[in-house]
Structures are given as structure tokens and as C-alpha cells.
């Protein structure tokens, strides 16, 4: 058994079934890239085996001091990234509402002008020499995490003739089982571009979209320094194993 960094007994049950109606479908034609990249045949369903209910563990020891600080983790000594300084914090919970400790969160984003540091990126907004655009954190015992960054700018992208992404931060999330693996995006409260975005619009349920919109959190701001947004992430919950069927004789 690998170390969890937690005092809790590890949970081993199968995960709740994923609600595919809540997620965007594979094919969302107004997001053109999905057209040739969406499987067309039915997914083959099966209850989790050990291959899905287990997953890798990432210890706090792997983190560098500035991993969760995108304002400084790429900046020259004494300098910092340009933009609206923000704290992003929240908890990773499972569908039962329990905080999930030891979750690796990896994030990436554009700079304040909406430009990514990537050689395939062609937007005319300039790079910020002090902003790389990646960061990571591991949740604590209660599932909590906190990051410091700048608010990314919206950016135009080649899809429709004039599509703009709302300001967003990409999040990659590792729970305790590989079946919980998730990549999603965080949006910002009040951004009018959210409701015009073909990628967001792939989600049909308004409440599901709202679950990806971080709320401005004035109680967590740092006065004279940074605003704050609260963003909780929910991973699949595990079924109870209390009355699990066992094969005869076991």
C-alpha cells in the first residue's frame, strides 16, 4: 500500500456512475474541433475494476515553494507577472460532499492579455516575460487548496468567424482513483463571454455551467494586494462497500 499522506483509511469502492448528460457530449458541432475527434459508437460500460478504482498518489514533497504562485514562479527575481492579481481557492469534494485530500491540481492559463506561452499560439497580444502560465497544488486534509495568479485575459480563437473565449483557467484534477480523472475549466463570475462560448455551450444544463463559474470572494481578498475567487471542484464519489456482493465462498 502506498502512502496517502492522510490518516484516513483508504476508500476502495467503485465510483458513482458518471452522469453523461451533465457533461458535454463528445460531439458539439459548434465547437468545430470536436467534429472529427468525437467517438461515434456507444461507450462500453462496466463497473470499476481495480484498474479504475486505484490511482497514483502525489505527495506534497514534490511541490516547489512557488508551484502555486503563478505571479512569481516564472518571473525574474524581484519581478512579477502583470495583471489583475487574484487568489483562487476552494475545496475539492466528492459527490458525497466530503473533502478529498491529496488531490493534485495542475492549472494553465493565458496571461493578462489573453496570450499563451506556446509556439503554436498566434494571437497578437504580447507575451509577459514574467509569466509562464502553469502552476500546481495538492489539497490538504479537508480538500482545500489556494493559488495565486493573475486574471487571464479573454482571447479570440479560430472557430467561428469571431469567437472569443471567456477568461478561464484550465484545471487538471487527480482524485484517488483513475476513474476520477478530470480536466475542466474555471470561469469568472460576471463575464458576459461565458454565455457566448461554444465550448461552454457544449454543456446543456445551466446549473452545470454555473458549477464552473468561480465566485468573487471579498472575504478572502488580501487588501491592497489581490482579489479572490472561490472555485470548488467535485469529483466522482465512491459507493459504500458495506453490503457489497461477494462471490460464494469468499
Amino acid at each position: 500500500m502506498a502512502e496517502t499522506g492522510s490518516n484516513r483509511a483508504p476508500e476502495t469502492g467503485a465510483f458513482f456512475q458518471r452522469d453523461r448528460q451533465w457533461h458535454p457530449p463528445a460531439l458539439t458541432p459548434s465547437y468545430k474541433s470536436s467534429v472529427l475527434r468525437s467517438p461515434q459508437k456507444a461507450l462500453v460500460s462496466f463497473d470499476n475494476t481495480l484498474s479504475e478504482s486505484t490511482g497514483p498518489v502525489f505527495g506534497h514533497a514534490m511541490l516547489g515553494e512557488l508551484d502555486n504562485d503563478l505571479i512569481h514562479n516564472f518571473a525574474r527575481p524581484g519581478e512579477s507577472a502583470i495583471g489583475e492579481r487574484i487568489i483562487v481557492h476552494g475545496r475539492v469534494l466528492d459527490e458525497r460532499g466530503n473533502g478529498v485530500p491529496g488531490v493534485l491540481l495542475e492549472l494553465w492559463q493565458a496571461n493578462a492579455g489573453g496570450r499563451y506561452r506556446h509556439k503554436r499560439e498566434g494571437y497578437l497580444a504580447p507575451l509577459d516575460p514574467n509569466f509562464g502560465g502553469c502552476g500546481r497544488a495538492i489539497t490538504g486534509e479537508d480538500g482545500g487548496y489556494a493559488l495565486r495568479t493573475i486574471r487571464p485575459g479573454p482571447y479570440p480563437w479560430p472557430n467561428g468567424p469571431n469567437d472569443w473565449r471567456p477568461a478561464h483557467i484550465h484545471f487538471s484534477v487527480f482524485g484517488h482513483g483513475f476513474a476520477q480523472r478530470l480536466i475542466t475549466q474555471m470561469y469568472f463570475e460576471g463575464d458576459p463571454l461565458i454565455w457566448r462560448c461554444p465550448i461552454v455551450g457544449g454543456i446543456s444544463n445551466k446549473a452545470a455551467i454555473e458549477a464552473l463559474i468561480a465566485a468573487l470572494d471579498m472575504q478572502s481578498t488580501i487588501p491592497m494586494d489581490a482579489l479572490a475567487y472561490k472555485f470548488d471542484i467535485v469529483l466522482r464519489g465512491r459507493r459504500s462497500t458495506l453490503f457489497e456482493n461477494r462471490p460464494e465462498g469468499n
Partner: protein
Amino acid sequence: MAQSLDRLKESPSQTAGPYVHIGLTPNFCGIGGVYASDLGSSMINDQTKGERIELRIRVLDGTGTPLREALVEIWQADANGFYNSPAEMRGAADPNFPGWGRQPTDTETGVCLFQTIKPGRVPFRDGRLMAPHITLWIAARGINVGLHTRLYFSDEEKANAEDPILARIEHRLRVPTLIAERQRDTYVFDIHLQGEKETVFFDS
């Protein structure tokens, strides 16, 4: 009205987009100095037990063109069939094998390579052994929800024939889409997102 079940809904998935490398393999895309190395880029060391193998994986779109900005993650048991995970209750896995790896597809050829070991057999829920396999998870621009599939091995015909997951696949013609072809110590595996050869993807 009945009482509330007080359950939350899973956060909806959104595409990883074209710049997934910035977040998940920053050194690969030229963002150096933030992390010492890209997570999951190396899976084995001198002490890892098991047969050394290479996986040569491509992800192809509906026109047969390989994706050149995809990200592939793998999760597998060690040589004895144990997962290096707290949820593995049967015994201790090889401490020199994390079981998890992550690679970007090559920006020119679309090939991604994993240096790993052949996994042992892992029991199914009822105790029968599954055939040796590796779980794959694929993220890329245009993929709204990460895709889950498995890689099985062409030189494990007998084990594959009794594998309970492969047995669930109703259209038997599709089973070979999950079987990587052995060429010396390399297993070649093409994942077809669409079309006649569409790979079997799972919901589990």
C-alpha cells in the same frame, strides 16, 4: 417531496484545449525552470522489476490524421499485478514503479512513446484474472470529456480470450482495436477516434 440525498454533481468536463502542454508538460513545450521535470515522464529505473517494453501510441482523428497536440496518460499494475495506490489492499506494489505515466504526442509525427514494463494480471471483481492490460486516458483539443480505453497485448492471446472486459464487447470485430501489436520489444497501438476502426472507449 422526499428527503434530499445531499449529493453533489461532478464538475462538468471541459476540453483540455490546444495548450494542454503548458500545464501538464511545461518543460516539453519550452517553459523551463518552473518544475524540475515533467510529471510522469519517466516510469522505470534500474531497480524496477519486470520485462522492459516500449509503447508506441498514436491518436488518429476521423480522417486518419494523427493528433499532434494530444496528451496520453497510462495507469498500470506492476510486474506482479499490484497497483502502486493506497486503494490497492492486496499487498505492496514494486516501490520502484509508480504505475502512472504521461506523454505528449510528438508535434510532427503524432507518436508518443512510453518506456515501461509489462504489467502482471489483476483480478476482476469476481476473482477471475483479467488479461495484462494498461489503462489509457486521452485529452486533446476537440475532446470534451477525457477518453478512457485499454491497451491489451498481442502476445497474450490465451489471457485475452478469457478477459472479462474484452468479453463484454458485443461486436467482436471491435476487440482487436484494443490489442497492441508486438514488434520486438515495442507494442504499437493506434487509437482511432472515429470511423470503421474506431477504438472501443469505456464508461467505467
